[in-house]
């Protein structure tokens, strides 16, 4: 699907813009080659993300200061060409420094509302006074480090924002740009042993967990 437009400002615009012809503006002619990831609609429906990488074959580590584009060469097909446009899907993986959720602000519910609800569920409807603390809502955070197998960069996640493995794995999978079907959650307990998270009930997991690691489940 191509954008068929006359890319120029209308002539009725202010005089300072009348000379401006946007047909001259073409991102591809600017320096550097854009490395975008493309996704097919079907793949999206199957929740798979397939990206074409650049010429550099080795797996890219993603340091904090890299731009937003997420390049992963592990699933690259030999025949793919960066310029080949199978679909016009473009996906920017938004990196959030130090944010516990892979996706800030989604779903679009005000955090004050979430906190008040969370409070009620955690404290089981006990009546009387509020906690008298600063009204920014966060009663207690429980940040633990989480790593993706094969990825050098560790992230952090606030476990207190989650009440089940479903929401935690969903969030972590998003954080690392994976599908939740492709990963398994493991954790390190107080004795230093690595265990499979879903083997134990959520409550026990929450008491024991020291750090997390996502491993690929394709074995």
């Amino acid at each position, binding site marked *: *699907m191509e*954008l068929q*437009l006359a*890319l120029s400002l209308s002539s009725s*615009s*202010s005089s*300072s*813009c009348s000379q*401006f012809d*946007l047909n001259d*503006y073409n*991102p591809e002619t*600017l*320096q*550097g080659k*854009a490395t975008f990831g493309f996704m097919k*609609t079907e793949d*999206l*429906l199957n929740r798979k993300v397939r990206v074409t990488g650049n010429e550099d074959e080795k797996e890219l580590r993603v340091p904090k*200061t890299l*731009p*937003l584009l997420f390049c992963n060469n592990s699933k690259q097909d030999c025949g793919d060409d960066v310029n080949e446009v199978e*679909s016009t899907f*473009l*996906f*920017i993986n*938004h990196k959030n*420094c130090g944010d516990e959720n892979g*996706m*800030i*602000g*989604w*779903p*679009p*519910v*005000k*955090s*004050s*509302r979430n906190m*008040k*609800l969370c409070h*009620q569920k955690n404290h089981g*409807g*006990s*009546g*009387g*006074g*509020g*906690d*008298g603390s*600063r*009204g*920014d809502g966060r009663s207690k955070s429980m940040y633990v480090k989480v790593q993706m197998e094969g990825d050098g960069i560790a992230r952090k996640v606030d476990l207190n*924002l989650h*009440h*089940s493995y*479903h*929401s935690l794995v*969903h*969030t972590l999978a998003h954080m690392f740009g994976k599908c939740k079907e492709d990963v398994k959650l493991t954790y390190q307990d107080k004795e230093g042993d690595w265990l499979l998270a879903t083997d134990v009930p959520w409550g026990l997991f929450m008491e024991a967990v020291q750090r997390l690691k996502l491993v690929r489940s394709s074995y």
Partner: protein
Amino acid sequence: MAYSFPEEVLEHVFSFLSSEKDRNAVSLVCKSWYEMERWCRRRIFVGNCYAVNPKIMIRRFPEVKSVELKGKPHFADFNLVPEGWGGYAYPWIVEIARGYPWLEEIRLKRMVVTDESLELISKSFKNFKVLVLSSCEGFSTDGLAAIAANCRNLRVLELRECEVEDLSGHWLSHFPDSFTSLESLNMGCLNSEVSFSALERLVARSPNLKTLRLNRAVPLEKLPTLLQLAPQLVELGTGSYSAEIRSDLCSSLLEAFSRCKNLKGLSGFWDVVPAYLPAFYSMCPRLTFLNLSYATTQSPDLTKIVSQCHNLQRLWVLDYIEDTGLNALSMSCKDLQELRVFPSDPFVADANVLLTEQGLVSVSEGCPKLQSVLYFCRQFSNSALTTIAKNRPNLTTFRLCILEPRAPDYLTFEPLDSGFGSIVQHCKNLRRLSLSGLLTDRVFQHIGTHAKKLDMLSIAFAGDSDLGLHYVLSGCESLRKLEIRDCPFGDKALLANADKLETMRSLWMSSCAVSFGACKVLGQKMPGLNVEVIDERENLDSIPHNSPVEKLYIYRTVAGERFDMPHFVRTMGKDNRRFK
């Protein structure tokens, strides 16, 4: 032949014009009407505090009694706008204090308000009556104490979902004993316990008190006392709605509620203990507004309540109400105009409640006056959307949030383009729309073609290409606010529709594909716009021009670029040496 009405007559005629649009139109007729109008305008609304500066406002409108300002973009509600971005009230308050000594009303939304600002307000306006702060932050209870202590004629003090540094509840005690003019008090967002006796005495000496919204720290046991003192209340927000089950409390609550013959709106209900719900059943037939969105009680209780609210016009509720409750709503509440269903567990992928698209379909079938919808759920279908559209062509606000981004039609696995297409096609007066689910450029084609009255559009995780954005910008004639996140929209559509941006209040784009270079070009070529790039990455100057920015906020302004920005906000294309 020169013929005109005497000034006094014109002024009298203009005094009947309350809408800003009408007044703006009148002021364009001729010079004398412009002059006449500007002297008698009493209310000013500034939708973007950076679109104009206060000096310009005061110069043009010298005799204003009420000022309303909005600061941060809407997506700030969802933590998408980093702290320190801006929206400071203080510079405005300083100018207004100087320019409008007889100002009576200040309303601020999404602004940073300091204690200093509040103190200045409390001391600058002799006849100050109304202070409403919505989603504001930056002040503490000390600032509230200043307002309480100094505003002798205060009628309205409302804090709606503000982030307040809660030092203590003592601020309430600063209202002097001689203070009796209170009509509305909303302290729902505060955490600290106020002195109950101070609250009791305040309510007792406020015969005109119509709205009282308590905070969670006020226990249920105290509610009957307050209600006895204020039987004239029209709107009540309870405190915590929980206590050990005692029959004496049950009966005193019941009695107190039944005395409040004018009560039309109820909210609060934190920590609900279902046993106490029947206490207000007698009120239900009179209620027009009910906010149960913090009531974590299950469907049977909720259903019982709504089934008795035959005059209900607005309902805010959690998805605990489920499809069955909404079905009951559709059968009992024929006057319903607004429905908001919030998610009880937004971060869990699997449904924890039996709330589906069917609930909304039922309400759309049964409630002929339904105009405004906000609905969070986990599945939807094109057929449901089309049914809703056909049932309710009178919809003016339709905000649907399917929790999983890019979720397709759960029946056909297709995108939801045709469903939302039906909405814009049938609902010809649609002013506000929020999209969700799997959507291609086609939905934007529908929107651009049909949504001619659309004023505000929110888009997330949607579209295929720049074409989508182009359809919206070129087709939606009435569009004023556009907010977009995580969509593959880039430079082309934006630059091709640069003119359009000057007809809008603002455009927000985050995690899209607009490049630094395009922002710079846009900023250079459009002097009437501020093109703000909000980007917190390090080493921004070494990122190539064709790389996408993190966040972009474009707004029209006559105030020029602002200078109160943090380091991570840059106005592009102005004479800005920091970033080439």
